[in-house]
């Protein structure tokens, strides 16, 4: 056992002696016997550090990791991107990693300033005015987005595009059981959201850009629709695509939400990621912005300093009247994202998005040569694309796995209307050679 408890027996005795106690058990004398655990915990014996490492090596070996043991063409909300060593090294500095929420600003200027920079970069990315210091993930960001819209509009109905990630839609429904919001789903027509004619007093429209099927939705049109219905437009925006595409803010979104994993985080089996959240600088910032917010101010000597601000919105002050319950967020993941965005800069982020798009385009050229394989939707896409395949997607994916590829995500469960379809993704990590090999394997996998 590694034993991170420093106390020696002699020291324990000394402390007990000071307290007038004889043994450790007496610390719990005031706890009713009836509820005390009479036995020890039924857990395996402790292990030494190297034994623990071996055990986890064992877990790791029972995985076929997409990033190392396979060539990954899967995305759908979790992406393999090139993660610079400098970003990893800096974000794992122990001062960031082992500190708490910066309640004492004098001791936390590092975290606070890094978050301030993160917020600033998110504003640049989204084309909006105020970004918070992170939420849990894309799903929770979307939930908070519709909740904010409901609070700001006083309405109880939200219209959600079916182009939103299926898991995000699931979470919206789960959370809505508590919030009582009514959710209408707007279907996709050839990959593009077909907003219902009657929007029924919506608090907001929620659209993804690009959407889950990779499609470039018409955000401006959604914004117009929202505005004309007195609703907000909440856009679930892919931050990588933002490097090349118009910002959702510039197209009229009031709130941008999304998943920040591509910046600073590995696929990590789904977490920890970071929920992106930015809004227009409207009156509702001060009352309804969820989560932490870092502001610039000065210290007693008028030096520039940073501090958590507008905390009167938050649960620890407003308690049951708070608009959100979020407390611990994803700070160090947000910091990693900020470092990664700074590493990229305006040209790097554009190049990254462009390389993804080029690879996807090349893959489409290859895959559409295969008999029975075609884009499942006709609308323009960026670097993710749904393909119709001539046999069960799971069989195709299994066969691809045998050839060393994670071929994508089967869509028949979430989008039965597309028939046998697979969502594939190409990032800047994929070479032409890999794409060629994948296309060849794909052809084989599709053959009877």
């Amino acid at each position, binding site marked *: 056992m590694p034993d991170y408890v420093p106390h020696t027996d002699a020291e324990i005795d000394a402390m007990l002696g000071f307290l007038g106690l004889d043994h450790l058990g007496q610390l719990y004398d005031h706890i009713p016997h009836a509820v005390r655990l009479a036995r020890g915990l039924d857990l395996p014996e402790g292990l030494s550090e190297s034994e623990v490492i071996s055990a986890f090596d064992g877990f790791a070996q029972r995985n076929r990791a997409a990033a190392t043991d396979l060539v990954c063409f899967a995305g759908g909300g979790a992406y393999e991107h090139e993660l610079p060593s400098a970003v990893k090294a800096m974000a794992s500095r122990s001062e*960031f990693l082992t500190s708490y929420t910066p309640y004492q600003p004098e001791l936390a200027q590092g975290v606070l300033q890094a978050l301030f920079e993160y*917020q600033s970069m998110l504003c640049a990315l989204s084309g909006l005015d105020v970004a918070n210091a992170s939420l849990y993930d894309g799903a929770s960001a979307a939930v908070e987005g519709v909740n904010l819209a409901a609070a700001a509009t006083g309405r109880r109905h939200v219209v959600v595009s079916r182009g939103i990630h299926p898991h995000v839609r699931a979470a919206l429904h789960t959370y809505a*059981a508590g919030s009582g919001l009514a959710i209408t789903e707007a279907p996709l027509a050839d990959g593009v959201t077909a907003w219902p004619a009657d929007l029924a007093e919506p608090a907001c429209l929620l659209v993804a850009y690009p959407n889950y099927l990779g499609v470039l939705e018409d955000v401006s049109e959604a914004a117009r629709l929202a505005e004309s219905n007195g609703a907000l437009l909440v856009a679930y925006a892919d931050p990588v695509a933002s490097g090349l595409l*118009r910002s959702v803010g510039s197209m009229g979104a009031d709130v941008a939400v999304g998943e920040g994993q591509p910046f600073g985080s590995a696929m990590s089996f789904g977490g920890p990621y970071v929920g992106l959240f930015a809004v227009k600088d409207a009156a509702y910032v001060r009352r309804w912005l969820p989560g932490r917010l870092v502001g610039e101010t000065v210290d007693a000597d008028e*030096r520039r300093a940073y501090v958590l601000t507008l905390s009167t919105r938050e649960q*620890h002050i407003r308690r049951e009247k*708070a608009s959100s319950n979020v407390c611990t967020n994803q700070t*160090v993941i947000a910091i990693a994202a900020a470092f990664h965005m700074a590493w990229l800069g305006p040209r790097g982020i554009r190049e990254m998005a462009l390389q993804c798009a080029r690879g996807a385009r090349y893959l489409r050229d290859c895959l559409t040569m295969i008999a029975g394989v075609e884009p499942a939707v006709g609308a323009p896409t*960026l670097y993710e694309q749904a393909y119709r395949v001539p046999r069960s997607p799971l069989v195709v994916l299994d066969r691809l796995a045998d050839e060393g590829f994670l071929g994508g995500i089967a869509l028949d469960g979430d989008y039965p209307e597309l028939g046998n379809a697979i969502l594939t993704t190409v990032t800047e990590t994929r070479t032409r050679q890999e794409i060629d090999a994948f296309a060849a394997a794909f052809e084989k996998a599709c053959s009877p």
Partner: protein
Amino acid sequence: MTVPPALQSPGAGRAASAPLLGHEAEPTIFELSAPGRRAWSFRNTGVHEWAAEELVPAEHLALEPVALPEVSERDLVAHASRLSHRNYSVDLGAYPLGSCTMKYNPKMCDAVAAMPGLVGCHPAQPESQIQGWLALMHGLTEALCEVTGMAAATLQPAAGAAGELTGLLLMRAWHQSQGNPRTKVLIPDSAHGTNPASVTLGGYEAVTVPSNAQGLVDLAALRDLLDDEVAGLMLTNPNTLGLFEREITEIAAALHEVGGLLYYDGANLNAILGVVRPGDMGFDIVHMNLHKTFATPHGGGGPGAGPVAVTERLAPFLPGPLVRHDDEAETYRWFTPAQSIGRMHLWHGNAMVLARAYSYILGYGGPGLRRVADAAVLNARYLKERVRGSYDFPFDDPCMHEFVASAARIRRETGVKALDLAKRFIEEGFHPPTMYFPLIVDEALMVEPTETESPQTVEAIAQALLRIAEEAATDPEAATAAPRTTVVSRVDEARAARDLKVRWRAED
């Protein structure tokens, strides 16, 4: 020979912002930017280099570049390193921040969280490719159930508050399945702020239960509040005063009598590991903060992980997917319970945090975890007794892993507030205790030494607390002007809220 203006940027490259060399402000990364500079490089993919216009319809193409900073990797690393030197952390010293359980985060767990075979998995890989992850999650779930005395658990919630909401939605689903979702959830006045906020988000009215003179739930008052519209009661035990609810059995019985569910805010399990279990006390739902009890690093505010464990009867409502072991096929499989409330996370929760926590649990094992509880309680109890006299304890039951002191008398006598004492404490070389929480204690200082601080450190903290209390009487200015040793002196919070500046702008 005049200096080109582009080269003028006096802050550049200077480390005077690192406290080692001085106390100047660190420029923002935007102020280190120079047009055209870069850190990035990408693989040469060999793919044809289509122009953006060939790939993206014109109406979608960005009109201008994203206004991110342009810096060299060297300047980015220097900036980040200097920022890190402007931040305190557990790794630098004691951090007795009550309710936050700032224990040592073993480096072993960092090593686990960096394993390519774990970190490189896509969350949507088919079961056959992720048996290691499923085994890990299954093992962690079982361990958490054993620690809490529960039957089943979800690992999805990303933090404590998300766990709370999960619990409340489970409560709602349960009652719904019984015919009536009910309308109210009770919470003690000492509860953490996330509790009432979660209650609201769960669609319930939060009704406050007063504490009695001992700082414990007022059982009589509770009984008065109970009726068949009460969905449940959220309790923290030991409560946020660090005190054990001695009448927990009676509380549970009373609640169950009206069909309510008992919720355990297990953010901090440190004091009860191997001592008592929520399940054995009659709780129905428990959330745990792995980023407290199970030593995963707080990351300056996150990520955490807030798994929720429940009794048998609530298991069918858990969010999915969960992991089960298919004994026949000798494989692990995902499954979603029949009446699942749905999803609390985009994927499967903060997986790498879960891996860290499980490595911590495997390291300690059963007896080790009990040793954690013993040392955590011993440290807190010792510290409390050492500072008795200088601070008051309005609620003075034997404390568990933490205690709440009141500086109300000091404030009355010297004008020095809890806030001032906290700032002054910084100069003693420690992170301050939690201030002004729980709300039912005046000028509260909530102190949680944790078990990884040595007895000598605890004694040093005691001496510092005694010293600053004494000094408040003789030299109150020392506290009100504190801290003076840090990179910034006392920060003007009011100004930040008034003149809201929450992003960098070139114009400012």
